[in-house]
């Protein structure tokens, strides 16, 4: 519709368009300085809510990563303790083999027994390993010393000292970490699953070996060698379990890392401004704003009034 041209309309249109151009210019400046497309809930409510959800996922994944690191701490400590136990056990097997041979006499056997008893104490020490003040082989009773040794007792029949009985004071409780949205991994091996179980009590068997050495019972010592190898099996099975868990955690950590970066990419595509686009928008709005302002200054440059004499 052809409107009758009136000055007030020119100014009104000019102001209306100037406001619009300035709003878009503001937006462009805001985006280019913040680097974000979404700066308020109303910018794009659906995307914004999606971004917030993704951000909460990332925060969860970061927590999983923390959980996994903490699990590595426990599992690695347990593994190295058990590795030491393995090493000690290998020496014990060697000593037991010496003791079983006919070339050694009772005095040497007694010395071997003393050595093995000391090594049994060493294993007990490893069984009481701590990390940050927490016993790692006590199940969930982490502030209870899991293995305690009773006093040596005198065997009046054979006239020998029997090494003190070791008792397990912990529990069979597993401690889990949340490694992923739906995966929990157990970070501990309770003492009764590696030292006093699951098949037999390591300390009892060592005590038997010590007694047999002191009693010069070579047949029994020969049997004990097999028992010692079973101990190695029990410990290495636990080490194997730890290894499985560690590699599982490594795998999860890798998956989380790639999941995190894909979420990050998605988030970035939703909330980060495309700089090339933003800068070109900014330039365009700048030109538009300039044109609008220049036009505004020209309004009424030509008016009949100017020609009135």
């Amino acid at each position, binding site marked *: 519709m052809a409107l*009758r041209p009136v000055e007030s309309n020119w100014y009104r249109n000019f102001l209306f368009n100037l406001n619009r151009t300035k709003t878009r210019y503001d937006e462009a400046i805001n985006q280019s300085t913040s680097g974000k497309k979404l700066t308020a809930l*109303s910018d794009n*409510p659906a995307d914004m809510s999606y971004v917030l959800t993704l951000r909460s996922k990332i925060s969860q994944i970061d*927590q999983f990563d*923390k*959980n996994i690191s*903490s699990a590595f701490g426990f599992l690695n400590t347990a593994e190295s303790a058990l590795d030491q136990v393995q090493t000690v056990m290998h020496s014990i097997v060697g000593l037991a083999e010496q003791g079983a041979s006919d070339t050694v006499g009772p005095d040497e056997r007694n010395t071997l027994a003393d050595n093995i008893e000391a090594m049994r104490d060493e294993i007990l020490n490893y069984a009481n390993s701590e990390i940050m003040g927490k016993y790692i082989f006590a199940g*969930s*009773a982490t502030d209870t010393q899991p293995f305690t040794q009773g006093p040596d007792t005198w065997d009046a029949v054979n006239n020998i000292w029997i090494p003190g009985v070791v008792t397990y004071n912990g529990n069979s409780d597993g*401690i889990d970490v949340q490694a992923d949205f739906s995966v929990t991994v157990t970070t501990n091996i309770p003492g009764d699953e590696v030292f006093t179980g699951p098949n037999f009590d390591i300390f009892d068997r060592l005590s038997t070996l010590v007694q047999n050495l002191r009693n010069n019972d070579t047949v029994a010592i020969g049997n004990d060698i097999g028992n010692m190898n079973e101990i190695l099996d029990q410990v290495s099975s636990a080490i194997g379990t730890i290894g499985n868990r560690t590699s599982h955690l490594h795998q999860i950590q890798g998956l989380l890392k790639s999941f995190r970066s894909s979420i990050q990419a998605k988030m970035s595509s939703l909330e980060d401004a495309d700089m090339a686009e933003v800068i070109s928008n900014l330039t365009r709005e700048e030109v538009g704003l300039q044109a609008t302002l220049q036009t505004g200054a020209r309004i009424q440059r030509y008016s009949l009034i100017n020609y009135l004499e």
Partner: protein
Amino acid sequence: MMNLFSAIELGKNSIMTQQQVFSIIGHNIANVNTPGYSRQVVDLENVRPSVIGLKDGGRGVNLLGIRSIRDRFIDGQITERKQYQGYYNTMSGLMATVESLFDETAGLGLSDSMSNFFNAWGDVANNPTDMPTRRALVSKAQSFALGMRNSFQRLTDQQEVIDANIGSLVDDINSITHEIAKLNEEIAYAEGSGNPANDLLDQRERKIRDLADKIGINFYYEQGNHSVTIEVAGRPLVSFNRVNDLSVQRNRYNSNYYDLYVDQYGAPAFNITTETVNGQMGALIVARDGQTVNGAGTVLNYTAGAPYDTLRFSQDHGLSVGDLITINGETRRVITITGSDEIMVESFTAGTVNNGDNWLERDGYIPEYKKDLNKLAAGLVQNVNNLHQGGYTLNGVTTTGQNFFRMSSNPAGITASVNAAGDTVTFTADVSTYISVGDVISINGETRLITNYNPGTLQATVDPPFTGPVAAGASWQYSNVQGAANTIQVDSNIVADATLIAASSQPTQAAPFAVGNNDIALLIAGLTDNNNVVDTDNDGTGDYGTFHEYLHSTFSEIGNTASTANYELDANGSMLTYLENKRDSISGVSLDEETANLMQFEKSFQALAQFMGTVSQLTDVLMQIV
């Protein structure tokens, strides 16, 4: 026949007419920038000869009248549009404020704070006996709870600011309606005495437009006296020179906020709160109370009671505690949800509600956001506490049954008494962290509304009063009508002693001494992924989740409402610009046009002056003959 003297007379009259034309052109040019000014044009008429005959000429030009050029139809459209403009302008501003209360974009908002809370439980699970880790959890939980309370409180503050604005807007509106009534009178007087009241009409049009911007109106022009009649919510507001003033009264059923009333010529003022939906006033009321919409079904069974009525509906109501419902013009607040189709409300006036009546509820805007926060807080408190109560603490005294968040029904160790009049409850300690005005309190089975609480005197006023005095030492319960988000707080015992955090599912101080057990901590940390943890339909079981999804859906609702208001504001702005352009193209002053007129009349003025000069010379010639 015309003589020379009458020719001078003709010239004089005509020059005077021309001068009047100049003054109109000047008036137009002077008002080129006056908003709502309608340009005026003069109607000229050639003066008829005194005697109609062959030899009698005309007697010059005369001013017939001054008309202003206007188009009532476009004026009406502009006024109509102004109501929406006023609405969306105000709403857009209000929503921008609400939006700014939830600044989630910087990564410091509620959503992140909630993530931190759950992650802190993960840390405790990794290291259940470590005190710094436990204390970190307490502080994360406290800052989340504070965030919830602050968000809720700021929404309430916003409602209060809006409420104050409603009060002052009423004064503005009343002063405009009085001016319109006065203009009605002046216009009728001027037009009645035959003078076109062009400038008064423009002025009145401007006032009507201002009024429409402030409150939604209907208006029409009367034929006889040129007055305008204005209605608001179907009730007369201005009728010729009479005005029905707007007024506000506090509604104790709606947090003591203002209800809007319109006088009815001396009859009791009529409550138009729910019917005011346009203009600034409409935006203020809708943002404060929510949009008024029809409730599902009808009232199936109404049982009057004191102080609370019971209402059963023909369908599930979907209401929450604290919601407003309106039946037959009376608004009351929901006190208890007794079933998916049944509620208890503050008592209606006897005879107001009948079975089969329709009912209204409020939807969206600030009350809805507060309700969402409440439901989130309630779901979180309930789920965390349920798990936490089953866990074992590291504390030697309290083993199990410890709440992590304070529940709304255990004001530990504080007892109450009621005075003889029954209207004042005195507590043994400050209860301001438990209750606020608008909550309800129960003592000995009687439930009352708290209308005032003074932490200094430890006294709360209730309405209606209890039936009698209650001796000191009485136990009391309360229900946070204000909601869980208003009161969510970490249990004060846990704040004081982090060993009370129950991370273990097995005894820690007796066999098996499972201090390192983290089952409960893992379960609580895992709540963040649980579905159906928020009870949205008030049936007592969760049906929406996760917590984050629920919170984000609220954010998205706020964002959508804000962006709609912004969009509508822009759309209305261009519509209004178009209409005003159209109006000005008809009624506006064009300087070129006025200048052209000026030049044209200048020429004819010069010619007339020449004419008179010539007549004067002729007269001189005649005089010389004498």
